[in-house]
């Protein structure tokens, strides 16, 4: 019966237009990249190393994140303590934490003058450097461990309480429970978690820019940036772009076989929990939770302690960059919301699968590849300085689309299923329908998606690095301060940036709930 409406509705027409525009934008950009690349002959051995590093750092980051997340998730699943809910919420924070801020935090703890190396020196141990491949991996684990924990924790909570009750009544030891209940769950959940982290790390740019570099720690994204910015070798940048696209497509093919969970999702808490064995299990769980919480909180606390007192003394250009960034983030978020809502409403009618594919296209095009392509396309008409800000806004909006769609499509489907016929039968159309039905009913996912888009755009330090230096965004300005070793000012900027990113997310999310 759900054959629904049979003419091409306005919602579907809108969705088709947006999907087509996206396809043209991304396809055209990629085509420009491919055309400029003129084959892969321009690539040298350095570029081969970048590909190799991209793959193995992503694999190692994913393996470490997933492996370390298992004990943390298990401890969180079976223990109850004050602050647990707050900790689980906090585990979601790295998703919207600006990368450059986290890097500042990690430098504050693991850098040359950080607490870890202070301790090492005091104990006569060799220092560890945060720069190089180990720093890249560390930062990737910092970002992805918490998200992996949330996903695996969700897997634990998805095991029905009755199973654990049955296990208890049969007198299962922790080992038996592991074998019969937990390991099958992990086998189902872990591949998706691993792949989600792997995909994120494949297009890692900011981390490699700040902590990596050199022959042994350059990702393909970073190599594109270097070819573009330092050598101004567009052909090589485009060749590298082609490789990046191939890598992403390869990973997406892999992903088709494995269900990838929503990387930001699954924060909800159910009340039941597996049996919590006492004795050394208890001590172990306590240590694991403390270590994970410390790993997450310490860098943020360190950068906050260093930067907060300095904020009043920040020079005026920081405030200019802040205002610029906030405006850009808001435009990006609005654009992302309009695009993803249009797509989701069209998709809710369930007849245009290609529209969804178009919405997921950004996943195969990394920001730097898109940036390179847009530059190549626009070069005859506009200079790079004029391009920087609009292109950044547009690319951030497009990059937020897959997340927005993940939040909005299920909600739009529910809305269509529950109230689509009622609205149709009352002739609710156009603006009246948007205002009276769609926006109020989809307020929550819209707020959430808008918050994500705003926070991600606010903290983004990607495509802007290709172009601008005279009108920096706040993250770019922070990076420039870092590079000139003005660490106190950089820390203050980091605190500011973190506060604004979280603040933007909070305002949108809250607004959506109140709508």
């Amino acid at each position, binding site marked *: *019966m759900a*054959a*629904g*409406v*049979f*003419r091409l509705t306005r919602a579907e027409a809108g969705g088709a237009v947006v999907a087509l525009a996206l396809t043209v934008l991304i396809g055209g950009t990629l085509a420009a990249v491919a055309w400029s690349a003129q084959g892969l002959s321009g690539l040298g051995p350095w570029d081969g190393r970048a590909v190799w590093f991209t793959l193995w750092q992503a694999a190692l980051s994913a393996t470490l994140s997933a492996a370390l997340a298992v004990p943390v998730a298990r401890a969180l699943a079976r223990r109850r303590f004050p602050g647990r809910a707050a900790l689980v919420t906090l585990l979601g924070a790295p998703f919207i934490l600006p990368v450059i801020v986290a890097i500042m935090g990690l430098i504050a703890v693991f850098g040359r003058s950080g607490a870890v190396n202070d301790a090492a020196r005091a104990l006569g141990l060799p220092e560890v450097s945060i720069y190089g491949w180990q720093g890249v991996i560390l930062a990737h684990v910092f970002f992805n461990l918490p998200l992996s924990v949330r996903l695996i924790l969700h897997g634990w909570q998805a095991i029905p309480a009755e199973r654990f009750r049955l296990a208890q009544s049969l007198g299962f030891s922790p080992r038996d429970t592991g074998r019969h209940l937990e390991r099958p769950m992990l086998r189902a959940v872990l591949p998706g978690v691993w792949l989600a982290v792997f995909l994120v790390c494949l297009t890692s740019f900011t981390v490699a820019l700040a902590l990596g570099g050199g022959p042994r720690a350059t990702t393909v994204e970073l190599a594109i940036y270097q070819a573009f910015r330092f050598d101004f070798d567009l052909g090589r940048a485009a060749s590298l772009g082609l490789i990046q696209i191939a890598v992403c497509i390869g990973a997406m093919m892999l992903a088709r076989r494995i269900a990838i969970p929503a990387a930001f999702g699954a924060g909800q808490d159910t009340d039941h929990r597996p049996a919590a064995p006492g004795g050394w299990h208890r001590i172990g769980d306590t240590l694991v939770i403390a270590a994970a919480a410390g790993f997450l909180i310490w860098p943020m606390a360190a950068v906050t302690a260093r930067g907060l007192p300095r904020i009043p003394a920040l020079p005026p250009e920081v405030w200019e960059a802040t205002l610029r960034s906030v405006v850009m983030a808001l435009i990006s978020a609005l654009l992302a919301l309009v695009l993803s809502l249009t797509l989701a409403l069209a998709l809710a009618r369930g007849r245009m699968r290609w529209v969804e594919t178009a919405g997921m296209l950004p996943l195969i095009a990394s920001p730097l590849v898109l940036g390179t392509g847009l530059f190549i396309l626009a070069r005859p008409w506009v200079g790079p300085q004029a391009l920087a800000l609009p292109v950044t806004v547009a690319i951030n909006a497009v990059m937020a689309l897959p997340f927005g769609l993940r939040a909005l499509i299920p909600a739009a489907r529910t809305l269509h299923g*529950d*109230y689509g*016929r*009622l609205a*149709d*039968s*009352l*002739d*609710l*159309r156009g*603006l*009246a*329908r948007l*205002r*009276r*039905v769609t926006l*109020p*009913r989809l307020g929550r996912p819209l707020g959430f998606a808008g918050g994500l888009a705003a926070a991600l755009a606010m903290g983004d330090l990607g495509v802007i690095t290709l172009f601008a230096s005279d009108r920096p965004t706040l993250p770019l300005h922070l990076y420039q301060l870092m590079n000139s070793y003005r660490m106190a000012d950089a820390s203050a900027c980091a605190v500011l940036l973190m506060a604004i990113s979280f603040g933007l997310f909070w305002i949108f999310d809250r607004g959506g709930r109140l709508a």
Partner: protein
Amino acid sequence: MGAALLEFDGIRVTRGAFHLSADLAVPTGARVAVIGPSGSGKSTLLSLVGGFLEPDRGRIRVDGQDITALPPGRRPVSMLFQDQNLFPHLTVAQNLGLGLRPDLRLSEPQRARVAQVLAEVGLDGTENRRPANLSGGQQSRVALARVLLRARPVLLLDEPFAALGPALKAEMLALLARIADRTNATVLMVTHDPGDARRLAPQTILVDGGVAHPPVPTDPLLDDPPPGLRAYLG
């Protein structure tokens, strides 16, 4: 607005293994029950009139006007669904107001009209409440009040009172009969309950074996049901 002649002219619908054909007319102002086994296509028949399903072939006409290509909201039809007849985030007055103007820009006389129909279904003073703060019976009354407000020539009911208890359901059917009288609507009502059919509908369309049969008098049909219906009624 007034009574209408509702015609199914050579209607054929096929969806996978499911098929339905309908070739019949519902006389002006009639009240007709739609009865048949589950999955036989009762709701399909209503969806065709409501505009939620496109027939593969055939036309649907109301008073001679072909409505087959009209979108649901432009049809001379009001429909009550099994559930979700009210928007939960809108107030009672807004839910009713949608029946007059979808953009809710109501004039003063229209507002007065909303208050008036609300009083007519015995719910005066509930204008600013949300559906969640009403009982199931009260929610049905609001939905019926909107039918009264829209006063469309054809009224379709897809078991909207199935979730109510027997006493409440009888009350709603009585209210429905009054409203149908007032608006002089042609009524098509899907029901599982032969008692409902006898109470409200002098005529019945039997949907069975992929065919919607022309309406026949309800009592004789139920007193001496054909084999398919007999198996269904038990």
